[in-house]
């Protein structure tokens, strides 16, 4: 298997570095700093220690017996990233990039956030490392994820509201990039998903691959083999590529990404760029995008702010084309039902993002025999969504 990405950050035709010239040298500098960190055993040791003692790794792989029973088919396992410090997988990447920012002697970090999980994680690592932190967040997301806005402020970060465009994650990325173009000499841009210009998709994947490596080890220890199927939700795709990547070469493992179906693909109001998008360039890389015939970026829709993004990471696009990964979509309504099921049957409230993966697992499990197994990436916990869910369910 060839190693991806190539030297220019390409995964086949996807990825690359489509940015204003001002950012090219800083991106090359970042790539070099990351390569040096990867060769430095002290960097790995520091990251491993923080992952264990601070973030709480390894996270458990939990067999959801009541959910399995309810579906009446394949065994469902949950990879409990919701138990990470700050409540989502996002901490894996921010610890890695935070240490990198420190190595690069940057005093200020900036980030974009959708659901607020990456913003909270970035504010957390900024507090931990004593760095200044500004987080860009669309005003629509500020409204629907107000709990995370308070958390970021309590952690000492400044939340900068973004009023432009659709006022969601896409526009927060635009503003963060504009800030970085302006303050590139002093500021580290801590991008939160496996997208953007090279080296971000590679770096974010590497820092999250701990998820898949742990699953491999834990599942083997429990059963002596590999799972039959992996499922994860896909917005930008950071938790998905983190879970999937260590299994790419294991041909017997079926890999499925679950996109935001919103009101349904046919409605045109969704966030399913891989299932229903076309190839284009946004935020520094080539990938599948929701766009109109003129190449204008469309507004995504999902009940979950973290999946409300019209693009997707380039590596997922590549594996869609090769056929290694499959992609499906789950509607807002199905995700809400899965949120409720997991809460009632297992006592676990998933993030609405993760509830998309749970919903598809429940569908899939029904049609498979008990000897089959499905591992679901439970990327985050649902505390942040409680208000939204109770409103939607009329509770």
């Amino acid at each position: 298997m060839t190693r991806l990405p190539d030297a220019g950050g390409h995964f086949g035709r996807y990825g690359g570095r489509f940015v204003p010239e001002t950012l090219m040298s800083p991106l090359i500098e970042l790539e070099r700093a990351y390569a040096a960190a990867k060769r430095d055993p002290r960097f790995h040791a520091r990251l491993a220690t923080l992952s264990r003692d601070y973030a709480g790794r390894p996270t458990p792989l939990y067999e959801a017996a009541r959910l399995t029973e309810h579906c009446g088919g394949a065994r469902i396992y949950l990879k409990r990233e919701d138990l990470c410090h700050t409540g989502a997988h996002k901490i894996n990447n921010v610890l890695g990039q935070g240490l990198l920012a420190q190595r690069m002697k940057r005093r200020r970090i900036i980030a974009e956030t959708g659901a607020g999980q990456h913003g909270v994680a970035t504010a957390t690592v900024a507090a931990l490392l004593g760095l200044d932190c500004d987080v860009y967040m669309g005003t629509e997301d500020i409204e629907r994820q107000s709990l995370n806005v308070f958390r970021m402020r309590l952690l000492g970060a400044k939340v900068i509201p973004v009023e432009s465009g659709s006022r969601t994650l896409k526009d927060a990325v635009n503003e963060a990039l504009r800030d970085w173009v302006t303050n590139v000499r002093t500021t580290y841009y801590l991008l939160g998903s496996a997208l953007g210009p090279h080296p971000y998709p590679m770096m974010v994947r590497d820092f999250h691959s701990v998820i898949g490596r742990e699953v491999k080890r834990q599942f083997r220890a429990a059963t002596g083999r590999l799972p039959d199927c992996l499922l994860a939700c896909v917005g930008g795709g950071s938790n998905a590529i983190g879970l999937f990547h260590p299994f790419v070469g294991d041909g017997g493992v079926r890999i499925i990404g679950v996109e935001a179906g919103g009101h349904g693909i046919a409605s045109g109001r969704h966030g399913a760029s891989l299932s229903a998008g076309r190839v284009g360039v946004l935020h520094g890389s080539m990938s599948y995008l929701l766009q109109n015939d003129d190449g204008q970026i469309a507004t995504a829709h999902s009940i979950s702010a973290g999946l409300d993004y019209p693009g997707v990471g380039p590596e997922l696009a590549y594996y869609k084309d090769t056929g290694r990964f499959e992609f499906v979509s789950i509607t807002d309504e199905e995700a809400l039902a899965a949120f409720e099921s997991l809460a009632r049957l297992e006592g676990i409230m998933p993030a609405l993002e993760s509830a998309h993966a749970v919903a598809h697992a429940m569908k899939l499990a029904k049609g498979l025999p008990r000897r089959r197994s499905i591992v679901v990436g439970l990327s985050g916990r649902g505390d942040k969504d409680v208000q939204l869910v109770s409103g939607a369910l009329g509770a």
Partner: protein
Amino acid sequence: MTRLGAAFDALRARRMRALIPYFTGGDPSLADTRRLIVEAARRGADIVEIGVPFSDPLADGPVIQRAAQRALAAGVTLPRVLELVRDLRSELAIPLVFLTYYNPVLAFGLKAFARSAVDAGLDGVIVADLPPEEAGPLADETTAAGLDLIHLVAPTSTPARMRRIAQRSRGFVYVVSLTGVTGVRDALPPDLLTQLRALRLITTRPICVGFGISAPEHVRAVAPYADGVIVGSAVVRLIEQHAGTSGLVGEVGRFIASMKAPLQHPINGARIE
């Protein structure tokens, strides 16, 4: 020789510098853009840059972002901006170049874009988010069609990058004057002239400076070191202020004339031969 090459040769022969105003195509309407560009040419614009509106213009500050939003809301598309060029070409002989982002061009099709652009009478294209590393596929098509693909140099570009960019750039080299997005600024960045001197030592290609050039004294300061100055947000802001009024074309025309004033006579500048 392309129209851009001929224009700079003629200017250099007279020791003159180019004034290059920018207009977002279709802000506030395509008919207004047409009238504004004709007036700009009458008031001394040597080249005109036309922005193709894009939904996510990450190199642009608020002024040009708003202009793009207005144009998109008015239904402006890349094919319609090409029609504007065709229409202007029947009336104007000065070079016209596009400033665009890559995705609208990709969606149009690279080969189709290069051919249609030349056919409409466009002379060059600047793609804000397409560094030379990724420009190969478009460059193949623009070269084949005879359209100048203009690359940008930034304050963060290393000398090695500046050299490579200058070699690949056609028509002229676009110097981004500052680390930041487009916008109106009070003063020029202090290290700009050093950057321009460094670039002059590397290339004999025409050099044009943009980003933040908002007043006649900025034009006067930069002119000895460059072949042209690009004025974007200051023009677009004026359009925003006067859109929908009968004074729109006159106000913008007067501003362009004021920016042209420092360039009305030959300049014995810091040309490094």
